[in-house]
């Protein structure tokens, strides 16, 4: 069994309106879960003057109005919450497990990748071929199998609107690690590109620049400023920190079918509400994941 180790968080002022808190220098689900537990508790207490509460991978940030909330009072409150939360082993997160269909090695991200090859480590292979090679896989099929077999935990939403950063729910030694592009692509990362940088997966919510490797594309919209699609009744963004994602490899025909559903306005991401605690996962990751994913197929 993996035990939880807790380090003491590091606090920093971010000018006069932010407090930045690094739970741990290195990424781990344990560090992330503490950030989630602390920000959830702060959200419940929510003192007057709080403007933004932003949980992230292994850190979090609070933006506040210092005319209303004295910075050192807030700092003391955050440190109190850190103590109360401890290792967050009794924290349970109400969240979602969901499926994201992915057309791996799609024509659009492949085209963009070739166009920006001078920004990349390798001139003669695609992003996913490169990722497969440096992670010790014989071919891209094996890489895709590893990428899509175990679910991913959304540990931060941001960079741009609604973009999820995801950390795969596998032991450390099975994490897929791929460097970011040597220099970011200035443009033309297609919308809904499934990307990867360091140990994080992501889904680009809007078309634009980006530095992550591009593995494929999903037909699932994750940002809808017009809120016209059924998944966006309550919010313009789909993702929240804590959502657990299972990638489902699809072929071009399935991709086109989903796109037609999106265009007809009746596409929905397949998702189920769940409560998630970290310790049962840490005790038996693969067994836990198998039970977790069964939830998606009940009913």
């Amino acid at each position, binding site marked *: 069994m993996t035990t939880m180790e807790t380090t003491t968080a590091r606090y920093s002022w971010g000018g006069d309106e932010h407090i930045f808190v690094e739970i741990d220098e290195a990424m781990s689900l344990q560090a992330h879960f503490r950030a989630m537990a602390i920000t959830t508790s702060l959200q419940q207490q929510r003192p007057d003057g709080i403007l933004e509460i932003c949980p992230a991978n292994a850190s979090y940030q609070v933006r506040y109005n210092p005319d209303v909330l004295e910075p050192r009072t807030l700092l003391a409150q955050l440190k109190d919450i850190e103590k109360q939360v401890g290792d967050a082993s009794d924290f349970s997160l109400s969240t979602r497990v969901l499926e994201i269909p992915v057309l791996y090695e799609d024509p659009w991200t492949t085209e963009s990748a070739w166009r920006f090859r001078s920004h990349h480590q390798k001139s003669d292979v695609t992003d996913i071929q490169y990722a497969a090679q440096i992670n010790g896989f014989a071919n891209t099929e094996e890489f895709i199998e590893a990428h899509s077999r175990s679910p991913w935990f959304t540990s931060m939403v941001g960079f741009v609107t609604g973009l999820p950063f995801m950390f795969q729910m596998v032991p450390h030694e099975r994490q897929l690690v791929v460097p970011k592009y040597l220099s970011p692509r200035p443009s033309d990362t297609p919308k809904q590109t499934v990307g990867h940088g360091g140990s994080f997966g992501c889904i680009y919510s809007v078309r634009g620049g980006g530095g992550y490797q591009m593995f494929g594309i999903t037909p699932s919209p994750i940002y809808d400023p017009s809120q016209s699609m059924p998944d966006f009744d309550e919010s*313009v963004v789909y993702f929240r920190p804590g959502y657990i994602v299972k990638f489902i490899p699809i072929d071009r025909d399935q991709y086109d079918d989903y796109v037609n559903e999106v265009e007809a306005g009746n596409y929905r991401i397949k998702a189920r509400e769940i409560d998630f605690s970290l310790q049962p996962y840490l005790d038996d990751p693969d067994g836990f994941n198998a039970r977790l994913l069964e939830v998606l197929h009940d009913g």
Partner: protein
Amino acid sequence: MTVELRTAGLSTTIQDSGRSGYYNVGIPPSGALDQYSLTAANYLVGNPADAAVLECAYMGPELHFTESTVVAVTGADMPPRLNGEPRPQWESFPVSSGDVLDFGFITAGARAYVGVVGGIDVPEALGSRSTYATAGLGGLDGRPLAAGDVLPIGQSRSAIAGRTVPEDLRPKFSKDLEVRVVMGLYDHVLTPDGRKTFLDTIWTLTPVADRTGFRYTGGKLELIERTPPFGAGQDPSNIVDAPYPIGSIQVPGGVEPILLHRDAVSGGGYMMVGTVISVDLDVVGQSAPNTRTQFVEVSLDEALDARRAYRKRIQRLAESCS
């Protein structure tokens, strides 16, 4: 009533005081980069401080009015002209139906603000009319304005021309800036020399200077030797992707600092070494490429003092316009 854009200028957007509560999902505050000039433009025409105005970067638009009203132009020195005749800045003046307001060349600052009685009345998106073009949110269809756009103007009972901001309450724009910074965040990744270089260098603002961020050139910062923590990436300046404060300064690879403004990317994997104090974001928002900028370290208490002084100035602005 409406205002029509005959030409759009270089980059004209609808902005107000911005939105809050969505940075956790990557939606930044947006709003006028120079909030003081926004407030002044609104007070001059009798609007609430946070009504929506036009933010006009570097080159102004040509505006055609369909009804009589009162307008005010603040911010960068960009001389307004009504039907070709000069009009003052920092002073409200009347326009009549059929009038055309345009602008001469910008001579100082970077962004002018045009306030209209009643405010620009596009629908609110997530609690604000501010344009966040990266995600196509707010403003008019979520984008910078284009020639031919017709802007709805809100209803207002009174229209008062001839209000003026006293000389001592108008900002002075300079090509040599001192910008106050609270150091911290990941500044421990800099060596003592690297930290000193950051604060001693006169940085030059590059042409990469927009609502998202301002990129500077002028030196290379020495980083400590370290093994990057798991998940951070290979470059010594990489961190595990973390939230970026508004006003934070990141230094990818130890060169070319990037200062994030009100359309900030909400997080990422480059070490930030400090954060510009909130009141100096206005000053940064008015800096044009080639502006020489020195970052001056201040304490939190000095930042809070500066904030109090700014609030007093806003109060005097309100009194002078009432």
